[in-house]
């Protein structure tokens, strides 16, 4: 059965002023699967990720042409509610960035922002989100402790809990384990595997073995273009493009 496509980009260009960072990106991101973006530094993979929830809107000179369809809706179309979009498409960053507040407040922040005030409802969301991020058992007795007292790996899982607290449909992850030790990395990877049952996950990673371990689909970016996309298993064993082969076998990049 062909999986449903959650995000489809068509001839998508990204410009930073005169510089074209992404060229004619066509990609289909399947629903409830993990899609990994790999490529050398500066290839545009993180820029692409940020196009998917319009994070690049914060950069004044950035301009997107072409289409980015989320469930068939062009998110760059007129009348798009960007706040609602970012609720639908959450993001987790390279370095854990919890707010300087308690664990509980970090997770409840988003739902409160979206108007939920009932204490009991919020408690349910906080617990559900922390469980969803595989952090509940470690923090349930210290929900009022400062988030910054947690370890790096726990902080990153807290950020994932914060992201899923607003019930997004898509989770964008920009090198979510690059600042973590191997054990914390393994936990996040395992979590991603579980998360994909409920969310569509798009992840940028520099670690090709990580992409091979956790993703279903992989896209290889080079110089602002997609060179090759395909099922992860195929792409890492028998890439079709010589440039993909050269990159994943360490001949450049």
């Amino acid at each position: 059965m062909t999986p449903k496509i959650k995000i489809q980009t068509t001839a998508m260009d990204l410009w930073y002023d005169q510089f074209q960072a992404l060229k004619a990106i066509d990609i289909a991101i399947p629903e409830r699967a993990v899609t990994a973006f790999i490529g050398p530094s500066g290839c545009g993979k993180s820029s692409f990720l940020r196009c998917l929830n319009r994070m690049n809107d914060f950069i004044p000179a950035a301009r997107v042409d072409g289409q980015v369809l989320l469930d068939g809706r062009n998110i760059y179309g007129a009348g798009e509610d960007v706040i609602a979009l970012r609720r639908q498409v959450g993001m987790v960053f390279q370095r854990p960035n919890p707010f300087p507040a308690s664990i509980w407040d970090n997770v409840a922040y988003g739902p409160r922002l979206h108007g939920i005030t009932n204490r009991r409802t919020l408690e349910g969301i906080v617990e559900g989100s922390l469980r969803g991020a595989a952090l509940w058992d470690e923090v349930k007795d210290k929900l009022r402790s400062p988030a910054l007292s947690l370890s790096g790996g726990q902080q990153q899982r807290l950020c994932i809990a914060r992201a899923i607290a607003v019930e997004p449909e898509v989770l964008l992850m920009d090198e979510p384990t690059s600042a973590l030790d191997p054990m914390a990395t393994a936990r996040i990877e395992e979590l991603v595997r579980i998360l994909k049952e409920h969310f569509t996950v798009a992840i940028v990673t520099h670690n090709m073995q990580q992409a091979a371990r956790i993703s279903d689909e992989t896209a290889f970016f080079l110089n602002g273009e997609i060179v090759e996309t395909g099922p992860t298993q195929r792409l890492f064993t028998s890439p079709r493009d010589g440039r993909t082969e050269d990159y994943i076998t360490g001949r450049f990049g």
Partner: protein
Amino acid sequence: MKDLNVRQTIDAELEDLRRSLLSLAGQAGQAVKNGLWALCNQDRILAREVIDGDDRLDRQTLEIDDKCLLFIARFQPMAQDLRTVSAISHMAVDLERIGDLGVNVAKFAVKLAGKPFVKPLVDLPRMGELFQEMLDGTMRAFINGDVDEAKGACALDDDIDDLERQVFREMLLMMMENPRIIEEGTALITVARTLERAADHVTNLAERVLYAITGEVASASSFRRPRGSRDDDGR
């Protein structure tokens, strides 16, 4: 300052693995060749050498397997590197089996030495030559990344199968006529069967080589004559 070349170490290690595999292939092929030569020339001493050499072959196979595992653990290879190291690991096992089959032939050489031949041995040496041609071609294909040569090696398997069936039929007729040669006759049939199996292992090698080169899973039988046109016997 010297340029940093991240591929240098990987390439050197893969080269070392390729050399080890080539050495194993050389010795496995030699085991079959010498075993057969000992049989045809009633050379007990050479046959003993083949039998005694098997331990070394087994050791080398294990060494290659260890090196492959270490390579995977250290470099976590991808794409062609991964296919190559996987191919080497599998090919070593097939080569070790080929070495064992050479030992089996050598054991018959010891058994039959000193007894007159029931017939001049023509087909068995021919099978040995074809086997060697297949093995050499497959290993060359591996080193040179030559798809056509690997396919060509597979095609020779038909000729070996034909010869094996020829030996079987011929010996069957001779044994029916003269039951006193049953022991020698069945021994020669078994040797032919052993050579045929050794050639089958070479087709496994060729399949691995093709996968390593192209990334596509290939079946050796698709490079052979269609089933109906092979000299199929009814056994």
